[in-house]
């Protein structure tokens, strides 16, 4: 019984974890790409990793927090431009191919020994090398605070301060996307998704709209990446292809082209994922090694993604009629 309550507390803790908030931001970005504009970005982890490196490396070089954040955002904007220019005039799967390849290349660059001076190579950048500017901003007093079953440090890596900032960012992002999708520009995005030629016939520059959506979604991905690494180290191998696919699962679970889909999807995804892994760890303690538990967890995510897309492509909140769900 005690074990069960500990597992449940752990899973509930995922609902407000910084990682969950980071995935919400990344999924909001992907939602702008795929949900609203119909762009198949298969490299959201690349945007996140670039954001993390931009933030981490510039902080280590001595940049203040605001400058480090700008570097992270500029990195993702440039990345979006490089990926978008050759592909956005072509059919949708070219963007998918190029983004999946580019995200992998970013990871390879990060772990390459040639750039190890800046990126730390395969070992990555340790958290306390780049966290100080962010931690120094915390107005919270030192010590621990317990709210309900959740007890964390006020400041530090896995703290209330990171959670506070993370979920505030999520709230801001939601307001931003809500305003954006109600604007004429937001309607253009949906227009591009539904019928590119019709939008073009209205005299709009479809290429420019797609590019703007790609950049904006990439910026959210980059912010998510910064938030993702704040409670941990920057490990290029931890932000690889599976991360992109987890973000996709989060988005499709919650419902693409909905405002709260990414939030609901991320909370549900991480709580269930934790429940599954913690349950396996406790229940099969003697028979399964920890890495095997992680692998089974990932396997279940893959199966869940397939079943989700086959049987409920609109996710929990989505509207099947609205979502044409086809590549551009």
């Amino acid at each position, binding site marked *: 019984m005690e074990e069960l309550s500990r597992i449940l507390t752990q899973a509930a803790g995922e609902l407000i974890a910084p990682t969950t908030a980071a995935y919400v931001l990344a999924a909001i970005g992907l939602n702008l790409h795929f949900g609203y504009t119909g762009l198949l970005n298969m490299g959201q982890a690349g945007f996140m990793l670039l954001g993390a490196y931009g933030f981490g490396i510039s902080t280590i070089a001595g940049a203040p927090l605001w400058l480090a954040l700008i570097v992270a955002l500029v990195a993702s904007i440039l990345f979006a431009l490089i990926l978008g220019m050759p592909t956005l005039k072509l059919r949708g799967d070219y963007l998918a191919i190029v983004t999946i390849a580019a995200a992998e290349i970013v990871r390879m660059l990060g772990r390459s020994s040639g750039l190890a001076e800046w990126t730390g190579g395969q070992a990555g950048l340790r958290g306390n090398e780049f966290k100080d500017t962010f931690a120094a901003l915390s107005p919270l007093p030192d010590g621990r605070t317990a709210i309900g079953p959740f007890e964390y440090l006020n*400041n530090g890596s896995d703290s209330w301060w990171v959670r506070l900032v993370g979920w505030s960012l999520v709230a801001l992002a939601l307001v*931003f996307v809500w305003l954006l999708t109600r604007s004429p520009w937001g309607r253009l995005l949906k227009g591009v998704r539904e019928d590119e030629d019709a939008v073009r016939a209205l005299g709009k520059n479809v290429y420019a709209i797609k590019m703007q959506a790609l950049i904006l979604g990439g910026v959210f991905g980059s912010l998510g990446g910064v938030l993702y690494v704040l409670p941990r180290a920057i490990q290029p191998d931890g932000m690889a292809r599976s991360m992109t696919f987890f973000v996709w699962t989060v988005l499709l679970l919650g419902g693409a082209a909905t405002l709260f889909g990414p939030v609901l999807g991320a909370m549900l995804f991480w709580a269930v994922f934790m429940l599954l892994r913690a349950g396996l760890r406790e229940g099969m303690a003697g028979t399964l090694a920890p890495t095997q538990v992680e692998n089974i967890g*990932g396997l279940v995510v893959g199966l869940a993604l397939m079943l989700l897309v086959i049987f409920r492509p609109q996710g929990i909140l989505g509207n099947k009629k609205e979502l044409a769900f086809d590549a551009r």
Partner: protein
Amino acid sequence: MTADRPNLATAARRLMATLVVAAFPALLAAAPAMAATAPVATDCTPEASTACVAAIVMDEENNFVPDVGVTISGAEFEAQVTTTQEGPVSVEVPQVGTYTITLDEATVPDGLFPDPPEIDVTAQRGSTARGAITLGDQPAGAAPTAEPGETATGGAETPAAGEAGSEEATSGGFSLANAWQKFGLGIRLGLLLALASVGISLIYGTTGLSNFAHGEQFTLGAVLAFMGINMWGLPFWPAAILAVVICTATGFVQDVVLWKPLRQRSTRLTQLMIITIGLSITLQFTIQLLIGNGSERILNTNPTSMTIAGIRLSSWSWASMAVAVLAILFIGWFLTRTRIGRATRAVSDNPALASATGINPDKIVRIVWTMSTGFAGLAGLMYGLSVGTFSWNTGMQMLLLMFAAVTLGGLGTAFGALAGSMVIGVVVEMSPLIPGMPNDLRYATALAILILVLLLRPQGLLGRRERIG
């Protein structure tokens, strides 16, 4: 369009302003930063008064190789450690000075050669001096990597002796013999790539689907052969044949339980593409569950090397290249000379017209799926044999090259995929000859080609214009 911009701009400005406002009170508070404990992969943490030496043993894909005995020796000091999968192993050394890192030959996996055989590093107080040794399937060639020291106190660079070696190797890289050898490696990669990417191209041609799970199908060939030999105790040939047969069966089964029902529900292509992604994650984690997260070798015997026309490759490489050529000739014969092959190309060109002439597209698509996964498995098996090691993410890296190859050749054209693969294979393997280009970034050249092709000739070498828009 222009009327919308101010909206976006003000919104962005508001966001930035909020960030600045949020940051301001904290600037005043300036709470002391708490030292966060991050996971450090080493067991020696450099402090002001201690010096560390770390040994890194990696394979050609830059994965850590576990269970290799390493001796770190210097003035009045000798330590023996064993590498782990997690990262560099480091030891605290008593005094500053030069230390030599050597590998225990008996623990190096057979058929792999340490490059360089030993490395000297200079230990300094307050830093970790790292020496990296790469295990390659060639006795010499790849540039040794020496990572700069990770300094805790000052900006002092820790020079490692390996760096001098890397310059030698770089200047040696310009020799004609070296270039020719790299060209040989490129042909080997190109042939294996061709065998795998022809499947992607055929699936795309007949169904319009980009199969993101094709990389895992590639790895599966090597994984099954590895398991057959090392876990089930089968001799080589039965294990290899069984691996290819099972891989072929996966394509057939996939079409029966997954792709055909989805075709009948007329599921949209985007949905199908995301399903291939789900399949790819599922297969990837299944493979990790089966063989673990490290590099593996299909055969533990020492391969003999053969020199043909000045190119020195393992005999497995030569055999694999011969098999790949035969298989490609077979595919060419099949597509141009047999009824089913011609029907495949007809479905590729125009499914509606093809079915009007009495071809059953469902049957053709099933043959294409079966064939594609079979050849991908065969290519993966031969990759594992000729390169020496493979790991769960080998196929994922190959997938990038395959996509670059089929795009270069023209998506959906089988012969384009063959031509594109040869170009990508040779360019990728020869790219380390470019001065300053690290060996572990050679796959990045494939992405550069991919982007250039899409900018300059999006239909590829042999593709047709109407396919891309």
